[in-house]
């Protein structure tokens, strides 16, 4: 495939939203990028060692999208995403131990071992998942925006989806509702070029790019380069402000690339694309390398500082795997917790009539 990355002048580095970043905040963003990368690499190691079940959809290569977007969140901003959800989770500040333990299926996991890789949630951090069905989260994201508007809160929802989700009906229904009702939402297509093993050109009909489909709904849209965290922040900030101030939705397409397969079970990751293509992205378009280059140039970090942050990320991720390994599995009795709110809270409603139908 042709490169989805558009080389643009680096004006976004001078965008006010980026210029206003403190040195500490910039270092923090670099730390977030490294923590996600290392978490993913180490989770892959333990997956391959047989410590986890099911799927593992890794975010490696896409880190600047989640970190850039989440760094813009205010008190009343909310996010929701699909199944490639670890990066967003760590970016909003979810505990790495709890994230890793969830992969291990342990009771110390963020969902007590009930959700797994695809189903991370942290409502206290305005993070609403973590959803396994392609585009199934897009109506929910629309609902978060609806809820904000209904409650009279000034904020926005960011609803992430992959390029493979743009052909689902629920996504189009969400676009229509968001535009029709004037909802404060930013739909963010993280376009990594492949819906599992099918390239964009083989899966989607579109005019110039996927985001341009917004025209059909009278919605603002923009394509951004996701390899540069500064560009992500500049572009998404504008869309968030439109949402917060004008109750208007935006459809953003952020081009990015995943180095790993669709999931670790993707046996064809070098068949639908070449190894050379993957290596070229790693070499020339790596979001962590690009942000590091910015920070070195700005004098925010030196090589030693970069290495220190990365080493700490490796150590934290390894420690999270140790934590997960040492944690206990859930007890069988926990199977019936967290099904019904009323039952869990032991309310009168929760104790009236039979709720479970085991013999």
């Amino acid at each position, binding site marked *: 495939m042709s490169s989805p990355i558009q080389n643009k002048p680096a004006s976004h580095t001078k965008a006010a939203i980026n210029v206003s970043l403190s040195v500490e905040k910039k270092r923090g963003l670099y730390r977030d990028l490294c923590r996600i990368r290392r978490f993913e690499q180490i989770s892959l190691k333990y997956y391959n060692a047989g410590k986890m079940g099911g799927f593992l959809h890794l975010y490696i290569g896409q880190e600047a999208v989640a970190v850039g977007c989440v760094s813009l969140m205010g008190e009343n901003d909310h996010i929701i995403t699909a199944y490639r959800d670890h990066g967003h989770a760590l970016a909003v500040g979810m505990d790495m131990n709890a994230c890793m333990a969830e992969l291990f299926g342990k009771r110390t996991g963020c969902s007590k071992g009930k959700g797994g890789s695809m*189903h991370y949630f942290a409502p206290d951090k305005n993070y609403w998942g973590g959803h396994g069905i392609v585009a*199934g989260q897009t*109506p929910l*994201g629309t609902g978060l925006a609806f809820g904000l508007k209904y409650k009279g809160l000034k904020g926005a929802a960011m609803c992430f989806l992959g390029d493979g989700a743009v052909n689902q009906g*629920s996504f189009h229904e969400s676009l229509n509702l968001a535009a029709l009702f004037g909802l404060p939402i930013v739909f963010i297509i993280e376009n990594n070029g492949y819906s599992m093993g099918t390239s964009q050109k083989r899966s989607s009909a579109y005019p110039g790019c996927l985001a341009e489909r917004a025209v059909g709904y009278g919605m603002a849209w923009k394509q951004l380069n996701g390899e540069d965290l500064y560009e992500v922040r500049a572009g998404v900030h504008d869309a968030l402000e439109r949402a917060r101030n004008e109750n208007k939705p935006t459809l953003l397409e952020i081009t990015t690339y995943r180095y790993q397969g669709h999931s670790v079970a993707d046996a064809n990751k070098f068949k639908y694309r070449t190894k050379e293509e993957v290596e070229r992205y790693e070499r020339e378009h790596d979001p962590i390398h690009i942000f590091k280059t910015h920070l070195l140039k700005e004098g925010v970090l030196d090589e030693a500082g970069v290495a220190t942050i990365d080493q700490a990320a490796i150590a934290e991720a390894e420690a999270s795997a140790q934590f997960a390994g040492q944690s206990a599995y859930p007890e069988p009795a926990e199977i019936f917790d*967290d099904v019904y709110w009323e039952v869990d809270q032991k309310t009168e409603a929760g104790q009236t009539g*039979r709720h479970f139908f085991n013999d």
Partner: protein
Amino acid sequence: MRRLSYRHALREAFDEELARDPMVMLMGEEVAQYNGAYKVTEGLWAKWGDKRVMDTPISEAGFIGMGVGASMLGVRPVMELMFWSFYTVAWDQIINNAGMVRYMSGGLINCPIVIRGPANSGTNVGATHSHTPENVIAQFPGMKCVVPATAYDAKGLMKAAIRDNDPVMFMENTLLYGEEWDVPDNSELPDGELVIPLGVADIKREGSDITLVCHGRAVHTCLKAAEILQSEHGISAEVVDLRSIRPLDEETIFNSVRKTHRLICVDENKPFGSIGSQIAAMVQQHCFDELDAPVLRVNSLDAPAFYSPPLEKIQNPTPEVVVARALEIC
């Protein structure tokens, strides 16, 4: 006592709950300016305005999912499916999102929503508009399901459903909307309002020889059958209206069977995996020694809903069929 139609009783429930809690709002196709395709929400938009009573486009997956998402932030949407049959196009939002998000988040999230609308056949609208999915919904732990048979039950159960903090699937009936029952005015009630807890069955007719367990419109089929059994055959049938499918009041069923020793489960589901199938399994296990005859089921005949009016009429359970089956075991 005053008489109130089933639709009017529902409307009163909405009106009272809209007044009680500012987070409660109604949405759906034609519920606002059109006053509801079946006039259940008539007048509520005029009274409560655009914010609380909202029209949606024909976009069930979109607006149901939107309501589920809003409920995670504390809004309490009551969403109308113009026909419950349209659940199929919103299935992922209803089951995977509303039904599973609490579990998959380890209890961090709950969805206080109601999805409501008519779920019945018998109106000659063909198979696509004639589904009775209470058995399908009840299959999913995390979901609650309610099927009221009278105006009284419709009002009381709706108020409980709206206050419930779990997703409640509320199934009404176009053939009952215009029927009237006694419904007390709030001033006549000790608590000042009518709220019926989910998970409590109601014995609609007492009897001693056979139990008819049913819900929804089948309750009225059974009541007619019970009259015939009494007047023409001297058989005393007890009619147990489940009202709530999940949670389920098993004790009322078991107690009735312990009294009558015979059971027919009557509902408008197709036979395979019907509500009656579940009841039959529970009763044979827990009341085996009490039974003097096999448990029978009367369901809708096992084919998609027939359009032709005379044929559809016999496809659903009729009093005559219930009587005939009862005579087999009495």
